[in-house]
């Protein structure tokens, strides 16, 4: 008899054998696999043919020749990309808007780096980043021409609304979640009511309310600009959902964790900051990334209160008579931009999950 401890695990089958086993085990299965393969190839051909093989790539083709072609007309992007990215921002000053985008992206990337995860560093990144963005966009000092928020647009506006919503909404959501756990019923029930009220309204109506209704209710000095009111509305909406996500994460932390921290004499602040929230955030991470992704895409709703973020700027880019036929190309381009940001965000989420899995069995 051979020594059982010398037995080796079975060798993995080769690629081809594995494929045959999975997809061509029986004649019927083989037929289905081939049919699906054919369908995929047909679709891929269709897309590639439109987007690449028959497409017009020349930057200065006229709309007429472009329209006559069988494929996509990328000329529209080459000629109109400034409107898509910068909206109504004055043409000569668009470098400022571009630079502001770079600032926001740098701010996001830096906040995502673990080496920046201390209160002081994050605060520095955010304060400096926001100030730089604001000065670049708004101007009025350092010899920069002043440009009102009504003229902001495109990618810079989308990024600004997203980042500002998260920067205000995320801390607010933590406060909401902690208030909801309060032992005082006035606080826990009160905040529960607020969260439920905000969640039961569509984001559209909240944005409308903050943009249009709030000016009637608040004295002038409390109103702030319309853009900032809209951001506050979006942040409140974000906080209401994110608070429930964090509350779920907190529920997943064993009761004994807080008791252990209490028995060591740790204060409420330390118990929450060092023991509960780090574990709750780990539990809540997938849902949190989801919420960030949704918020990024929901920035497109600000069009209803008159702001030309990237999607609305895209509408303007093809909406000028000569290029109206090329809406597919513009939307494909905008989709690519959204995809770049959202996909990076979800890959970052996956990285965080791997990183945080350290220490769990």
């Amino acid at each position, binding site marked *: 008899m051979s020594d059982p401890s010398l037995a080796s695990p079975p060798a993995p089958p080769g690629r081809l054998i594995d494929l045959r086993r999975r997809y061509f085990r029986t004649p019927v299965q083989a037929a289905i696999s081939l049919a699906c393969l054919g369908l995929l190839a047909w679709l891929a051909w269709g897309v590639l043919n439109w987007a690449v093989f028959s497409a017009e790539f020349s930057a200065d083709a006229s709309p007429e020749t472009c329209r006559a072609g069988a494929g996509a007309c990328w000329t529209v992007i080459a000629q109109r990309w400034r409107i898509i990215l910068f909206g109504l921002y004055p043409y000569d000053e668009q470098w400022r808007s571009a630079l502001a985008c770079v600032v926001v992206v740098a701010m996001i990337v830096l906040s995502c780096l673990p080496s920046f995860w201390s209160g002081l560093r994050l605060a520095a990144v955010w304060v400096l980043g926001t100030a730089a963005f604001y000065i670049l966009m708004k101007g009025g000092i350092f010899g920069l021409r002043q440009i009102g928020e009504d003229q902001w647009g495109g990618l810079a506006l989308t990024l600004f609304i997203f980042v500002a919503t998260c920067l205000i909404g995320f801390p607010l959501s933590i406060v909401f979640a902690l208030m909801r756990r309060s032992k005082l019923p006035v606080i826990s029930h009160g905040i529960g009511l607020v969260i439920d009220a905000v969640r039961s309204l569509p984001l559209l109506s909240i944005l409308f309310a903050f943009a249009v209704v709030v000016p009637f209710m608040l004295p002038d000095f409390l109103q702030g600009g319309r853009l900032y009111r809209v951001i506050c509305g979006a942040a409140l909406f974000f906080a209401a959902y994110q608070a429930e996500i964090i509350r779920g994460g907190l529920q997943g932390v*064993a009761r004994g964790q807080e008791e252990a921290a209490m028995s*060591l*004499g*740790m204060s409420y602040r330390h118990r929450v900051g*060092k023991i509960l929230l780090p574990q709750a955030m780990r539990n809540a991470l997938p849902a949190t990334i989801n919420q960030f992704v949704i918020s990024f895409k929901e920035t497109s709703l600000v069009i209803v209160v008159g702001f030309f973020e990237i999607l609305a700027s895209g509408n303007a880019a093809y909406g000028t008579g000569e290029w109206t036929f090329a809406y597919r190309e513009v939307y494909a381009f905008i989709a690519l931009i959204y995809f770049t940001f959202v996909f990076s965000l979800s890959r970052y989420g996956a990285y965080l999950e791997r990183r945080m899995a350290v*220490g769990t*069995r």
Partner: protein
Amino acid sequence: MTSTDQLPTPAVSIQGMQKFYGSFHALKNIDLTVEKGEKLVICGPSGSGKSTMIRCINRLEEHDGGRITVLGTELNDDVGNIDGIRREVGMVFQHFNLFPHMTVLENCVLAPMLVRKIPRAQAEAAAMRYLEKVRIPEQARKYPGQLSGGQQQRVAIARSLCMEPEILLFDEPTSALDPEMIAEVLDVMVSLASDGMTMICVTHEMGFARRVADRVIFMDAGEIVEMADPETFFGDPKNERTKKFLSQILGH
């Protein structure tokens, strides 16, 4: 009981304590004094209130009547008092309750650094000393999830010791352990006892009680039914309920 020359402040003094869960009377008129350096073992059937009683001592549960005085400070709604007492009273839990997102060493230095404001280097040196005491210094850089139950419980004991408490409460420290790991935890507890630590242990390890305890308490239905030195307690129990309980847990 220990006796000292000066007039000693008892470690814990409980007078007429009541505890209710809704209308359920969980602890009935508890009177108990524990001197400094004393080792007390509390046993009793599940639901008898023993865990609740020791959890009242560091106010993980609030008592509803009577007085609890710990190291001369009365437990009341004064948050400062409660935090002060918790600094001096360590607790070891049935399910260890180590912080899973931190290494063993971080678990040990967290509270000393945050609560006692001890610098990191000093806190780490102390932590390594206590990890050596519980015979587990080589695991300092690991996470709790990578350790066995017995190792985790020893880390939990070291974590409590790092706060240099006057009193240690043990809430069924070996109940969640596989049998082969119980001994390693009990050995550590015995060595702590010989160092003179004030210990209040809820446990069913009667061998430990016999060997270490100054007094053994039997609780049932929220009352202290019997209290005696281990020899009398095991050799000549007075109360019928105690006799029945002992025959059940020692019977096989």
